[in-house]
């Protein structure tokens, strides 16, 4: 209903590419993080610009072509690499296409779509995560430039980016109207990566702490009008949450299928464990939850693609898909027993990777706050 035969053809090419060029290296990249060259390869094959206009090197597809990529990455258990690609194509670059000037699109979007420059987005700060309005990074205007000062934390691709979309206060006195977005090339003096952080899952991706210290950014690199940053960021967050939901649900489906096959093959007390009612019903519960949330996710994607702005449903998708992904991964470990706890079985990593879903791109609690607001609560 949502996917045409062109999408399905694309899906098979992406699947074959991942099987040949990504999956064989995933375990190694869990130790080393993925090499930049794989992003270049994604770019060569057009996978970083699936839904971007052809004039900027994109493929001219619709939103569901981006959904296909996200689903296939999740299906192949790409974890951190999937997150890094999603940050690049669905978080950092969409605002450039939507709010950028022609020169900004040429300078930042085109190399990102080609895979020559990896993109990051920095909003979270040590003292401002859920409460983004508490961001303290400042951008002071001075002779054709903005001078950025402040810290950002948990920044995916932060250590390897070619440029970073940074949210900062251009007018500290103006509240929500005081934020602006800036495109900051990695080699700008004063842009420091202070460290990369160790974490529970998503090990193939790097997560950085950034310091901006008198970092001079040309005024031309401000994205959109001054003071519009908050509104632009809220728009960005919708796309970020929706693509996260797509990935989570596809990941949950892959984990469910793995656990089901395992339960059919694993013999205990003389029969496949899938024949025990407890296990059988657990599998059914997993499948049901996935199916229900996926239906909402696809419907919401179609509305987003049609230009609607369904904040409530996007937040519901993000919240429910994250919960389902974590629950399904946990159920899968239970079904696999001791094997499920071992790193050589994919559900162990899926469980660690999935846990992020309830925190990143807005926590469960924040999703509920947003949904509550749409009901006037």
């Amino acid at each position, binding site marked *: 209903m949502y996917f045409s035969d*062109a999408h399905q053809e694309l899906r098979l090419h992406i699947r*074959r590419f991942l099987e040949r060029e990504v999956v064989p290296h995933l375990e190694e990249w869990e130790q080393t993080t993925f090499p930049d060259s794989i992003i270049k390869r994604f770019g060569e094959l057009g996978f970083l610009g699936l839904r971007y206009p052809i004039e900027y090197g994109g493929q001219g597809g619709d939103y569901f072509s981006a959904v296909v990529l996200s689903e296939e990455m999740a299906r192949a258990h790409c974890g951190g690499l999937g997150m890094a690609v999603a940050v690049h194509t669905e978080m950092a670059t969409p605002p450039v296409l939507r709010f950028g000037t022609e020169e900004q699109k040429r300078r930042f979007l085109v190399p990102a779509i080609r895979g020559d420059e990896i993109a990051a987005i920095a909003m979270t700060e040590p003292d401002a995560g859920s409460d983004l309005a508490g961001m303290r990074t400042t951008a002071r205007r001075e002779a054709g430039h903005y001078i950025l000062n402040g810290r950002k934390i948990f920044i995916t691709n932060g250590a390897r980016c070619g440029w970073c979309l940074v949210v900062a206060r251009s007018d500290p006195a103006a509240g929500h109207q005081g934020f602006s977005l800036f495109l900051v090339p990695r080699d700008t003096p004063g842009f420091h990566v202070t460290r990369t952080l160790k974490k529970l899952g998503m090990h193939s991706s790097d997560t950085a702490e950034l310091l901006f210290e008198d970092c001079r950014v040309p005024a031309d690199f401000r994205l959109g009008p001054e003071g519009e940053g908050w509104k632009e960021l809220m728009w960005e967050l919708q796309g970020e949450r929706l693509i996260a939901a797509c990935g989570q649900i596809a990941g949950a489906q892959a984990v469910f299928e793995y656990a089901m096959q395992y339960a059919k093959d694993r013999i205990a007390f003389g029969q496949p464990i899938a024949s025990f009612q407890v296990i059988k019903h657990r599998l059914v519960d997993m499948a049901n939850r996935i199916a229900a949330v996926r239906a909402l996710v696809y419907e919401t994607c179609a509305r987003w693609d049609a230009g609607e702005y369904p904040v409530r449903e996007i937040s519901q998708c993000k919240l429910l898909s994250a919960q389902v992904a974590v629950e399904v991964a946990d159920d899968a470990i239970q079904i696999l027993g001791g094997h499920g706890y071992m790193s050589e079985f994919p559900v162990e990593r899926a469980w660690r990777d999935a846990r992020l879903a309830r925190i990143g791109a807005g926590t469960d609690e924040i999703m509920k706050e947003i949904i509550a607001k749409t009901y006037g609560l």
Partner: protein
Amino acid sequence: MKIVVTVKQVPDPNSPQRLDADNTIARDGDVVLDPGDACGVEIGLRLKEAHGGEVVLVSMGPERAREAIRKALSMGADRAVLVTDPALEGADVNTTARALAAAIGSESPDLVVCATESYDGSTGMVPPMLAEVLGLPQLTFANHVEVNGSTVSVHRQTEDGYQVVEAPMPALVAVTAGIAEPRYASLRGIMAARNKEVRTVGVADLGLEVPAPAETVEGVEDAPSRQQGEIVEDDGASGVERIMALLQAAKVI
């Protein structure tokens, strides 16, 4: 340079293979572009990228074969000719080669690229017969193809290496399945393929007469399952000699 690549739609190698009641291959299940032909398309496209020109696909099959043709167009081929006619149903290799030759002949290509054999029929006879009917030199088992001016040269795979063989163009090259990994189609390529020309021609358009099949498959049986071999117990004394004797009798050593 005009390059014709022959392509065929075959039953999906990942689903179980079946025969129809008349011992011809059942084609009503899942079907795909023959994986060997995808390699042929890849070679055609690389030659076009290196030397310019056009890649034209020629296929014979039912209307439904358009799906497989479109997969090859997504990879970047320029257009296609589908030979389709009820009279060609169940065609043997002779008829297949003649029908393809008629369609290819009217294109006057510089080079014809075929896979060595189709995934389903696996006769391996169509490329040589095609070359014969078209009156072209044929270079077979190619695992490397190069064009220099008006000459095509290939590495012809042999058991212990390869031979370098060349021929003046126009010529026909049959490539091995390992020659090149078919490219991943881009979304743009996939969308563009929907607007590319797929011309259908029938027996009458080609001025073909379809003879009765020279060869029909009269029966099909499963290969005999392997018999249990002789088990030699290691009794610490004569076991090794017994095995040596068996291997010598089998002329293995």
